[in-house]
Structures are given as structure tokens and as C-alpha cells.
């Protein structure tokens, strides 16, 4: 018991570090995906009125009055911009509707309904108010819905996003597809390498191991841009093909700025993550087993498939899970060499983080990705058993 407490004490600094630097920030960030009180905080009068409204009946004079009061105040407090940005996400054009109405709100007179509709006809439309109702809710499924191509509407219903705006499911699916392909390529390429490493004399295998590790010490950007130089239309590989007459000068292969580029570069970058666990497991397999199989009459293939391969499964599992999960989160490489059909969901998350500043939507998409990966992990566990996995 004392020993266990002592052991726990030793891991405490790491646990505290993980909690403070990783788990809590991640949770706080994910929280943004369902909680957004921008509107409620700065528009205190209209928020309760909007919450009480059923979302389908004609907006009443009292609603317009509360909104007018808020607009005047928000303009005075200079918070109108934040509110307008929030509303714009639910209703395109809502930003200028808010800022321009707020500019004149102090001069409006009762009845406010008529005054505001005269000012901007958009105030007479039910959709405008439904968008406000969505914006006013502190806890909202709107971002989560968006990240799976659904639209949460002001009347409380959830429908499919209209067709020309559907993007997220396609990207999630593509992310899985690319990750799976990269994992398969890594396995096919990495397995023989790991086998070779584990069967060579120590001196030569150590040298080869350093070659496997070498890319780890090179920046991921350098490795990716190197692939551009190799694969592009006037790149090394195409030049070679042309020089050897494999292809004509005017129909060079396009191997970069598309999915091929993403697959090649990602496979190269993630390959060590497959080789290392495989190598660790293969090294522990006694050679005698395969020799025994041979002496009992198995040919090369049977000895490999029935005797050797099953013993490496633990390493295969570890490598596959490692590479697949790392691949789902890749965004630098696809962004550089992916063109348009090699983009993954993390590129869109990155877009919303850095470009559109729609952090709640980024958080919601991150949450969906996390759930997806955990589900696949669970599925893997059910099928093959995680406790059989070995990292060496």
C-alpha cells in the first residue's frame, strides 16, 4: 500500500502537468463549442424576451422595444461589434444590420416595431428573429450541428444543411480514408524494414535504425517541402521520367498538390511510428520458432503466415493505432501538398482558428473528431483487444 502511494507520488508532477497544460485547456476549449454567451452578456434586455418567444409566432412590439434598448446600450458600451459578429454567424448580413441599426437606434421612437422595419425591412422577417433566438441561447447545439452538416434553426428544429453548404461529413470521411490509406502504406513499407532491422547483426541494424530515426530530427516542414521539390511538375521525379522516356514532356504526372501528394508525404513522415513498435516486438521473437516450423515441414509462406506473423500482431496493432491516430490530426502536410482533394478536417479547423476566428465552431469540430477517434479506438479494442498491444 505504502509502495503504491509512493509510486503515485512520483507520477504526481506529471499528472499535475498534464492536467494543467493539457486536459483542462482542452476541456475549456471544447466547452466553447457548446457555450457561447456573447449575445446574452451584452444584450440583457432582449435575451430573456427571445428565450420566452416560441420562435414561430409574429414578433411582438415588446421584443422590438427590448432590442432597441439593448442596441442603444451596446453602441454606447462599444460591444455592438461583438454582438454583430455573433449574429452574423447565424444570419449572413446580420453584422451590418446590427451595426447600422445601432447607429440610429437612439433616435428611433415608439412604436419600435414599425420604426425598425421602416429603417431596415429585414427586421420584419421571421428568419432574422429566429437567428437572434439561436444567438441568444447561452448553451447552443448550433455549432455541433454545423460541424456534422446539420442546421439548428430558430424554431428549435434541426434539419440537414442545404446541399451546397455541406462540407464537414465529407471531410471527416476523407480524413478517415486518408488516415487509413496512410496506415496501410506504412504497414506495407514498414513491416519488411522492421523485419530486416531485427534480423541483421547488431552493428548493421543499429546503423539502419539511425537512418530510420534521422527524419525525426528534421523539421516536418523541410521534409514536406522536399517532397514538393521531388514530386512537382518540373520536379526531380518527373524530370527523371522524361529523361528516361517513360512519359512525354507535355504530360508529366501531377503527383503533388493533390491527394497523391498528401499520401506520399504523410506516409514518409509517419513511417518511423510504424517501424519502431514493429521492430521492438520482432526483436523479442526467437528465431527458433520459424526454424522449428520449417523443420516440421512448413514452406516459407506458411512458416511466416502461421508462425511468425501472429507473434508480431502486438506490434502491428501498436503501429496501426499510433499511425492512424496521428494521421487524423495532420494538417501542415496536407495544407502544403494536398491541393484541394488532399485536405482533411484539421485543415478546416485550422481555417476557423486562424482565419475566420470562429473558435466555437473549431471547438465543435475538434470535439466531433475526438469522439470519432475514440470510437474507432474502442472499436479496435473490441475487435483485437488493446491489452494485446505492445510498444516494445
Amino acid at each position: 500500500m505504502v509502495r503504491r502511494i509512493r509510486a503515485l507520488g512520483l507520477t504526481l508532477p506529471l499528472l499535475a502537468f498534464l492536467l494543467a497544460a493539457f486536459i483542462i485547456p482542452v476541456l475549456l476549449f471544447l466547452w466553447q463549442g457548446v457555450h457561447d454567451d456573447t449575445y446574452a452578456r451584452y444584450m440583457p434586455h432582449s435575451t430573456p424576451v427571445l428565450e420566452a418567444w416560441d420562435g414561430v409566432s409574429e414578433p411582438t412590439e415588446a421584443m422590438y422595444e427590448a432590442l432597441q434598448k439593448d442596441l442603444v446600450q451596446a453602441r454606447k458600451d462599444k460591444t455592438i461589434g461583438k454582438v454583430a459578429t455573433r449574429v452574423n454567424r447565424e444570419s449572413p448580413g446580420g453584422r451590418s444590420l446590427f451595426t447600422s441599426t445601432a447607429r440610429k437606434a437612439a433616435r428611433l421612437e415608439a412604436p419600435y416595431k414599425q420604426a425598425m422595419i421602416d429603417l431596415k425591412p429585414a427586421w420584419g422577417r421571421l428568419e432574422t428573429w429566429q437567428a437572434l433566438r439561436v444567438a441568444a441561447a447561452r448553451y447552443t447545439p448550433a455549432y455541433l450541428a454545423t460541424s456534422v452538416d446539420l442546421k439548428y434553426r430558430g424554431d428549435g428544429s434541426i434539419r440537414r444543411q442545404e446541399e451546397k453548404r455541406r462540407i464537414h461529413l465529407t471531410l471527416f470521411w476523407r480524413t478517415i480514408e486518408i488516415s487509413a490509406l496512410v496506415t496501410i502504406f506504412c504497414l506495407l513499407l514498414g513491416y519488411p524494414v522492421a523485419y530486416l532491422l531485427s534480423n541483421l547483426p547488431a552493428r548493421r541494424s543499429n546503423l539502419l535504425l539511425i537512418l530510420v530515426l534521422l527524419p525525426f530530427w528534421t523539421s516536418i516542414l523541410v521534409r514536406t517541402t522536399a517532397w514538393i521539390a521531388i514530386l512537382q511538375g518540373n520536379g526531380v521525379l518527373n524530370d527523371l521520367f522524361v529523361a528516361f522516356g517513360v512519359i512525354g514532356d507535355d504530360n508529366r504526372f501531377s503527383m503533388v498538390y493533390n491527394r497523391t501528394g498528401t499520401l506520399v508525404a504523410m506516409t514518409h513522415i509517419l513511417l518511423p511510428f510504424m517501424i519502431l513498435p514493429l521492430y521492438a516486438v520482432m526483436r523479442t521473437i526467437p528465431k527458433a520458432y520459424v526454424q522449428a516450423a520449417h523443420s516440421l515441414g512448413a514452406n516459407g509462406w506458411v512458416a511466416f503466415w502461421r508462425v511468425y506473423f501472429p507473434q508480431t500482431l502486438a506490434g502491428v496493432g501498436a503501429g496501426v493505432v499510433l499511425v492512424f491516430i496521428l494521421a487524423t490530426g495532420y494538417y501542415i502536410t496536407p495544407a502544403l501538398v494536398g491541393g484541394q482533394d488532399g485536405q482533411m478536417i484539421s485543415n478546416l479547423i485550422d481555417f476557423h482558428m486562424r482565419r475566420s476566428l470562429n473558435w466555437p465552431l473549431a471547438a465543435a469540430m475538434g470535439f466531433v473528431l475526438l469522439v470519432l477517434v475514440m470510437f474507432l479506438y474502442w472499436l479496435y479494442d473490441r475487435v483485437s483487444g488493446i491489452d494485446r498491444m505492445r510498444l516494445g
Partner: protein
Amino acid sequence: MKSSAFLYAAGFCLAATTASAGDLTIVSWGGAYTKSQTEAYYKPWMASTGHRILSEDYSGGLAEVKAQVQAGNVTWDIVDVEDAEAILGCDEGLLEEFDPAILPPAPDGTSAEEDFLKDAIGDCAIGTVVWSTAYAYNQTRLSPPPATIRDFFDLEKFPGRRGMRKTPKVNLEIALVADGVPPDQVYEVMATEEGIDRAFVKLDSIREHVLWWEVGAQPPQLLVDGEVIMSTAYNGRIFNAFAAEGQPLAMVWDAQVLAVDNWAVVKGAPNIELALDFIRFASMPENMAVQASWISYAPVRKSASELVGSYHADPDLKMGPHLPTWPDNMKTAIWHDEEFWADHIDELNERFNAWLIE
């Protein structure tokens, strides 16, 4: 592009440890553009005030600014922003508000408000240059050369890959003009759903042949490498490739989209007073004219435009015809409507991104 994000992260750590009181951190777009600002503004201002300027590069957007302001740990003083970011940043409370009274008047006494181009003085941002997105081509690869925006969309006349910036901005505008919409009616058409549909249909016609770029340094490189036969580009980058590096690139000004680039002060910046002093200095017409001798972006002040002379390295190369605001270049120009884009950018980005992966 991500590389600049990484450089930024590295530079950011560096700046956080080396910046001391009285050092002004100015963040701009890098490359030839930052070079022109360094020569025209940073060096003379440092010489006259004795303060240091730490220059950093970024690739646009407000994410870094938002992160700094939200964390209450602002290390950037001034950031060079596009119109849309100036508006969004002001709305979100990420940028300091300006009093235009700090701006110096023109040499002949005209007030700054009258001397600056329309809309170049914003609530939180002061215009510095007029830049333009138009398309360029490699002279050694295309003959006869393309001349109109229709040529850019004409796959029969000019087969081959085109480069376009990966954003709906500018692309929707030029697609409509190529489809026959007069340049001055572009935004009226874009305000309707049918107009947007029409633009996407036009873009559809060349989609298979487009290579999407993200940072300004890419188009000249892609053109020189022959990866694309023509590409939309920032005019200053093409000019730099042509004037400084001797590359055979040329611009087609038809349906160019003009926009203003701005100085903005980050909310809660460590050196607000110094920052304002710098912006005042950088807004003097004579200094603006110096910048235009380094890069082909036009000053936003009318009085500065009159002072523009030759390229700094070649007295025979007059800058005038290379500026987006040159009368011949302006015939079919479109002024970027930042209000329209601030309202519709989310919606159109969504649709554009969905269209890209269709």
C-alpha cells in the same frame, strides 16, 4: 501557409524574450513588402527617435492578435492588416481606436481626412498603401499574351493550369466580370443569391485547372517554375519578381481588385504612444513616396502619389505605370467592398470551401 505560422511562433518566442521597454514590435507580411516598409519607415524612424523596431512576419488573419488580447499578454504593438480584419478586429475589440487628428496634413495644408483616399481612415486602422490583386503571366510561356480577364477563364485560347488565391474574395468578383458583369456592378450582383450562383458556375468552368495558393510569395514562384501559366497575384510581388529578380513576368490589369492595407494598434499594446508616433511618421506623404520607390503599391494619400518617382535601383524605371492607381490600370478596376465582405465572408467561405471539395 503554415510555414509562416511556424516562423511566427519562433519569432514570437524570440520577441517575447528580447523585447524591452521602448522597443516597438511591428508585424507585417514579410518579403519585399516588409523590405519596403523597413527602408521607408523603420530605418528613418529608428534613426530619428532612437527607439528600436522589432520586425516580425505573419500571414494575415487575427488569430494571433485575438490570442494575445484574450490572454492579456500583448507583445505586438502594430500590425499591418487588410480591410476586412481592420473591421472585424475593431468590432471584436481587438484593436485600439484612432483619433485621425494625429495624422499630419499634406504639404499644401490640406487636412489628412481630405488627403487620404475615401474610406482609408477607419475607426481602428489607418490606410497605408493601395494594393491590388490582378493576374500575371510568364512572358516566355504565353504568346500572344493574354489581355483581358476573359482570357484568364478561356481554356481554349490559353490551355493550362491557373493559380488563384484560396478564398472566395476577389475570385467571385473577377469571375462575374469575366462572365460579362460590368466592374462597377459586381457587388450589386453579388448581393443576390443568383449572382453568387452565377460566379460559382463561372469558376466551375475552370475549377479542374486551378492550383490554389495561400501566401503572396507563391504565385511568382509558380509562374517562374512553370507550374501555372497564369495566376492571380498581389501586384507588388509580381513587380518585385520582375524588377528586382529580372523574371519575365507581366501583369494584366483588367478587372484588378484594389484594396487598402492598414496600420492598426493592438488593443492594450505595450507601447501605444510610440506606436501612434510611428504611424504618424509613416503617414507623412514624403515617407509614403519613398515606400513606393521600393514596391509597386500606391500611397493612400493623394499628395504622396504626386511625389512618387522611380524605382530605387533603376532611375529609368518609372513607378507610376506599375502602381494599381495609374489611370490606364484603373479603367476596369474594382474597389474591394470591405463592408460586403465583412457581412458575407463566413457564409461565402462556407460555400467556397464546400465547393472546393465537391
